């Protein structure tokens, strides 16, 4: 008599299997898949003004040490943190902050290697060393460098505790639901931290000026907008709390569908959804272009009879946003680039 195959013990592994798979998948999805949505932190608005140390270098505090170090308060996700000015060596793990620092012409000594975006470090400063990837810090390299400050953002925020044991770590994630105020605060703080407040103010003026210009166009051109990301042959929609929410919240383009909840990778949609939502403006992020893949472009994916029925397609009001905006949302160059793209599109609108 053959033993029954399904004795209780071995089956246990099968009980676990689906769960295990689910768990692994969930793990993979959360840990690896580049989720860069800051947890819905109670990020306090910019009311918590940082003390702006006017560049008053004459203010020499008498000190036993040779050099006096001025301390400064920096607003972070985890509350205000006091830090010495001009921390060096400096390590940065977030592309938004890298863009701001590059615009401020601040030297960064360590950043993740192999980043594909432009404008991540200032041309005039020495090249940074590689200190891991955007998800995984290379603790050995960090230890060798002995940084005075580590700046992290959304993607690396989970590693905060680990990094804090090495050097003072600042979680300067951007709050996507409040991207304008949040990024303004970050730029201001970075300027203050590196004694470049004037420059930071100037950069902020550039952004504000461009926002005002763009807004004057989006205001007069009444029409709803929908932000979609095209990834392979599939699409997802982004709402007003996402990293692309500024199109609706800052520029005031009404949402074609106001029920889009926030998710780091958007909400999966079909082409029928675009036909039904019928936006007057379609803002497209081509994710495969973001990874340097020029195979099936977003244009080819969207070019179908269903999308063609939407106002956006028939009026040729499809705006292709820079793929970099997916990773460096709220950074100085990203603001300038995306606003310019949108402004030009609305300028040419009939």
């Amino acid at each position, binding site marked *: 008599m053959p033993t*029954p195959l*399904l004795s209780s013990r071995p089956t246990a592994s*099968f009980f676990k299997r689906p769960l295990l798979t689910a768990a692994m998948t969930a793990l993979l999805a959360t840990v690896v898949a580049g989720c860069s949505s800051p947890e819905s932190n109670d990020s306090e608005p910019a009311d918590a003004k940082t003390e702006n140390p006017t560049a008053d270098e004459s203010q020499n505090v008498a000190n036993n040490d040779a050099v006096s170090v001025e301390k400064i308060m920096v607003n972070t996700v985890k509350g205000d943190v006091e830090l010495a000015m001009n921390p060096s060596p400096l390590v940065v793990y977030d592309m938004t902050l890298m863009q701001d620092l590059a615009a401020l012409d601040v030297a960064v000594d360590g950043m993740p290697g192999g980043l594909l975006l432009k404008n991540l470090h200032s041309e005039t400063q020495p090249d940074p060393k590689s200190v891991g990837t955007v998800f995984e810090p290379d603790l050995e390299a960090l230890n060798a460098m002995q940084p005075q400050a580590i700046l992290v953002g959304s993607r690396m925020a989970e590693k905060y505790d680990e990094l804090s044991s090495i050097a003072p770590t600042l979680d300067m994630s951007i709050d996507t639901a409040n991207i304008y105020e949040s990024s303004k605060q970050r730029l201001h703080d970075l300027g203050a931290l590196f004694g470049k407040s004037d420059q930071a103010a100037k950069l902020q003026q550039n952004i504000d000026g461009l926002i005002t210009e763009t807004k004057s166009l989006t205001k007069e051109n009444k029409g709803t907008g929908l932000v979609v990301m095209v990834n392979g042959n599939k699409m997802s929609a982004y709402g007003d709390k996402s990293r692309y929410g500024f199109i609706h919240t800052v520029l005031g383009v009404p949402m074609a569908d106001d029920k889009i909840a926030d998710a780091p990778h958007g909400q999966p949609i079909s082409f029928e959804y675009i036909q039904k939502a019928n936006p007057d403006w379609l803002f497209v992020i081509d994710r495969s272009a973001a990874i340097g893949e020029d195979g099936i472009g977003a244009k080819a994916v969207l070019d179908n009879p269903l999308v063609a029925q939407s106002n956006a397609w028939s009026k040729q009001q499809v705006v292709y946003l820079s793929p970099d905006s997916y990773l460096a949302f709220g950074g100085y160059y990203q603001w300038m680039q995306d606003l310019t793209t949108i402004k030009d599109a609305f300028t040419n609108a009939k």
Partner: protein
Amino acid sequence: MSLFSPRTHARLKSSTAPSASSWQSGTGNALHRRTVVPPWFINTASLILMGLLVLLSLSIGVADFSWSGILQSLLTQSANSDSSLLLVSRIPRTIAIILTGIAMAVAGMIIQVVLKNRFVEPSMVGATQSAALGLLVVSLLFPASALIVKMGVATIAAVFGMMLFMLLIHRIPPTDFLMIPLIGIVFGGIIEAVTTFIAYQTESLQLLSVWQFGDFSGVLAGRYELLWLTGALCVLAYIIADKLTIVGLGDNIALNLGISKRQVTWIGVGMVAMMSAVVVVTVGMIPFIGLVVPNIVSRLMGDKLRRSLPAVALLGASAVLLCDIIGRSIRYPFEVPVATIFGVVGTVLFLWLLLRAPSEQ
């Protein structure tokens, strides 16, 4: 050969073939012969169910659609918005779902027969994972290559992956049931890890997720036709069903009946690889179908492929249809990938299969 001929074949499981019961005993106690439901009954029921699901699938979607518009279009012999929506989006999606369901279920059945093991499916023998790896590599190296090239590379990768797996389990006696799926899960995991690493290094994790989570949201006329290939492969599977059955009965029997085990095995492996590759390329991985559906059908109809393949195909199609309809309606107007839904449903079904087995004694 009609689908519904009430053929009352004695099951091929003969008392002179102890090895035969070895892999079939997974469906219950070998000593107690179950009552086998007549195939015509199951197939008719499946077809009616599938017909209903197809109608449902055609009616559900985000865009406005009414059957009266279709009727009008038919009566006036002119196209209107309803009929074009049906032709551009709804019908292609439904066909894609049916073909995918059939392909994955039949592929699961083939691989279970060839490996003489009830607990394997294409994603447990490294087929789908290898296909995704091949796909990623070709997309990174030659992003502009045609879909058919990508599919070809994915197929070759899947064949290689399965060959490697066959070599791995070559030493395991076929009686050691649980080792094979366990090794398969680990093997698939390793390949997936390699794929993830490459994707991670090249910032293409999201592209990978397109293939790893099967869903039909991107299906339109002109974007799924590759799936017809799997339909052709399923017909081929039906043609060689008897040979596959005999190979599944054990090496000695195959030898005595003059069937080349090696040849049939490789044909089976090639077919499974190709089906997996096509499905991964066009819609993405959908786990569990190939595991759950063949098991349910075997339980009802026994293991003679010639008789059970049509039922496997029909049930597979219905299962995916149902899951996609759920995925379309659960968070309307947004979609939930069918792979996610099937992961949940498939898990429940599989647990039911496992728990139900002892109660038959």
